[in-house]
């Protein structure tokens, strides 16, 4: 099976290790991965901040780049939800505004074949044990868009539970937002920081070494709060844990 990696602009620029982990993991599972070099950004920041017409050319660009692949895999619940939940709405909106079906027709082909990484592993490949080894205590934060927009449910936890050496501890208040929220973090810094601090304190109370999530944007906010509060905990993307093996352990 040949899939396209949609890495997201944040991961590409700031978290290349997550991209390498996805490539390593999928290759190990017998999947041929391509990275279309023309990919950029799904348009979520524009859309959610209210610049919806600025998001449209980005969505069209996304659809052009990824149209011909069998499946599109992304290590981000948030950007995955943008494609799956909001691209159809962009199409409907253009139609309602009397701009015809062109946008909907452009976007439609990529919507059903875009998968968040854990969905792809569990639903498409049918695996929960990906052969990983990660000898650390880990607590899992289900990010909002993965949890509520995509409905990832127990998939990430099942994948983590199957990792050898890993001890999974429950995060109190796991389903509460960490306070990132894209431009929310900049527009409402005090509330955002207070939410982040509470998330970090809850994580700290578990005694885990690592807080794991499937969205680097949320991890950027949580991790930045962790170092500022000097917790000693580390934020790690789920893909990096799943890619880790005894021979090639994740850092």
């Amino acid at each position, binding site marked *: 099976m040949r899939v396209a990696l949609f890495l997201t602009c944040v991961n590409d620029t700031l978290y290349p290790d997550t991209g390498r982990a996805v490539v390593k993991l999928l290759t190990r599972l017998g999947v041929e991965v391509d990275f279309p070099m023309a990919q950029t950004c799904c348009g979520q920041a524009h859309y959610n901040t209210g610049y919806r017409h*600025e998001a449209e050319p980005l969505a069209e660009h996304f659809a052009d780049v990824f149209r011909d692949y069998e499946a599109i895999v992304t290590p981000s619940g948030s950007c995955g939800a943008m494609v799956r939940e909001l691209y159809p709405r962009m199409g409907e909106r253009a139609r309602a505004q009397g701009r015809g079906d062109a946008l909907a027709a452009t976007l439609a082909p990529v919507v059903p074949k875009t998968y968040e990484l854990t969905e792809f592993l569990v639903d498409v490949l049918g695996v929960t044990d990906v052969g990983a080894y990660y000898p650390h205590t880990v607590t899992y934060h289900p990010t909002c868009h993965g949890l509520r927009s995509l409905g990832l449910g127990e998939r990430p936890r099942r994948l983590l539970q199957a990792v050898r050496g890993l001890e999974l501890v429950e995060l109190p208040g796991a389903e509460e937002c960490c306070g990132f929220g894209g431009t929310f973090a900049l527009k409402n810094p005090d509330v955002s920081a207070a939410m982040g601090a509470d998330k970090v304190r809850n994580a700290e109370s578990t005694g885990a070494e690592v807080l794991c999530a499937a969205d680097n944007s949320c991890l950027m906010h949580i991790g930045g709060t962790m170092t500022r509060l000097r917790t000693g905990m580390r934020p790690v993307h789920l893909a990096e844990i799943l890619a880790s093996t005894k021979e090639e352990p994740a850092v």
Partner: protein
Amino acid sequence: MSGTFVGMPGFPAFPSAAREAVHDTTLRGNLRHATHTIRAKRAKAVAEVSDWAELREAGKRIKDHTLRHLDHYLVRLEESVTAAGGTVHWAADADEANRIVTGLVRETGESEVVKVKSMATQEIELNEALEAAGIHAYETDLAELIVQLGRDRPSHILVPAIHRNRGEIRDIFAREMGDWGRPAPEGLTDTPAGLAEAARLHLREKFLRAKVGVSGANFMVAETGTLVVVESEGNGRMCLTLPETLISVVGIEKIVPTWRDLEVFLQTLPRSSTAERMNPYTSTWTGTTDADGPRAFHLVLLDNGRTDTLADEVGRQALRCIRCSACLNVCPVYERAGGHAYGSVYPGPIGAILSPQLRGTASEIDASLPYASSLCGACYEVCPVAIDIPEVLVHLRERVVEGGEVTRGGNKVVLRPAKGHAAERAAMRAARWAFTRPGALRTGQRLASRTRRLHPRTLPGPGRAWSGTRDLPPVPAEPFRDWWQRTRGGNDVKGTAG
């Protein structure tokens, strides 16, 4: 811009109003305790109902149907109320509603009214209007009483005094009750029973004296002209039954077509709001009867921006709201910012979408409310009438930054973008330009990587909002796409180490 008024003008924007609350540890502790307790109870009460999803869908459909045919059902309601011996008054805005109610009270010759908790009368600031006319309005809902005695403002839809703890309430009662009527008993403690008894004695005096009652309503049934109030304390029922004149001020969206429709909401409202299977008191009243209850009944139907909101295809779903406050109790932003930061009687997620629609987005606070959310979606998940609050927030954000056509005062007007977004708009356009050109993105990434050792630890300009409380991640030496190209996707063994 029309002058629809939903209380508290000239309020600062949400971020600065929230800052104070975030750093008030007592307030945050009170809110955290209260919202987390009710949140857990609600989840349990909802889980007991096997057909919750169907009830939610039914509530949504009933409300949508009624809103679509609102003109028809309002006329039907007026006919029913009139046939039952009541009088219907139509109020386009807050001023008109206040004028009508003040006039009705004056006609009775009374200078005091008792009130059952009502969002609509808070929305139009009726108490202040009555006060200006020399009429004292006494709030009789326990939490409203606390707010009124404390010269405070409500901070929650269902629990207006949620921001107060028991000790604070004791102090307010002991200090203030004497100025308003019967003083608090000597040696008042902060036990719930002691506080409830003090309130009971204080309020009983008012109930037995009052000739005029003012209420809102949770629902109005078009087919019979019946109004419905659901409550926990029974104080509302005293207001509805003891006075000689009853004046109910109700938003036009509170209508349901038939009694049968109440079946749905009387299940979803108490479970969503107080986490009870059924609320202790459900009172219904229809016009007047000879042998019992008020001699005169007036219904003031309030528009105050609702028809304008109804004209908006996306935003109108906010009018489905049954004021259960489940969205407040689950909202992580409300929990930290507190209700006052929203600058309206409608706080929390529903307030963030309702106020900028009822009042317009011209003021600083109204332009900031659509951004008072991290779009986490918890509010939508718990809403018993399935209002997609995140969707409406994004819709209103677009109105703020880009302007657009809206209906105000029944007329189509084109709004200009709100002030203060020029730099952001330029940045968004620039980002869109770069993101539609992969080469430009790559150049930017490489530049960031090469200069990474020069990056400051704290950022200037808008970035300071980030680096004031959180560290930034270091920029990696090489963006992923360069690694991919250099190593041919990791297939070049030599490159994988890089």
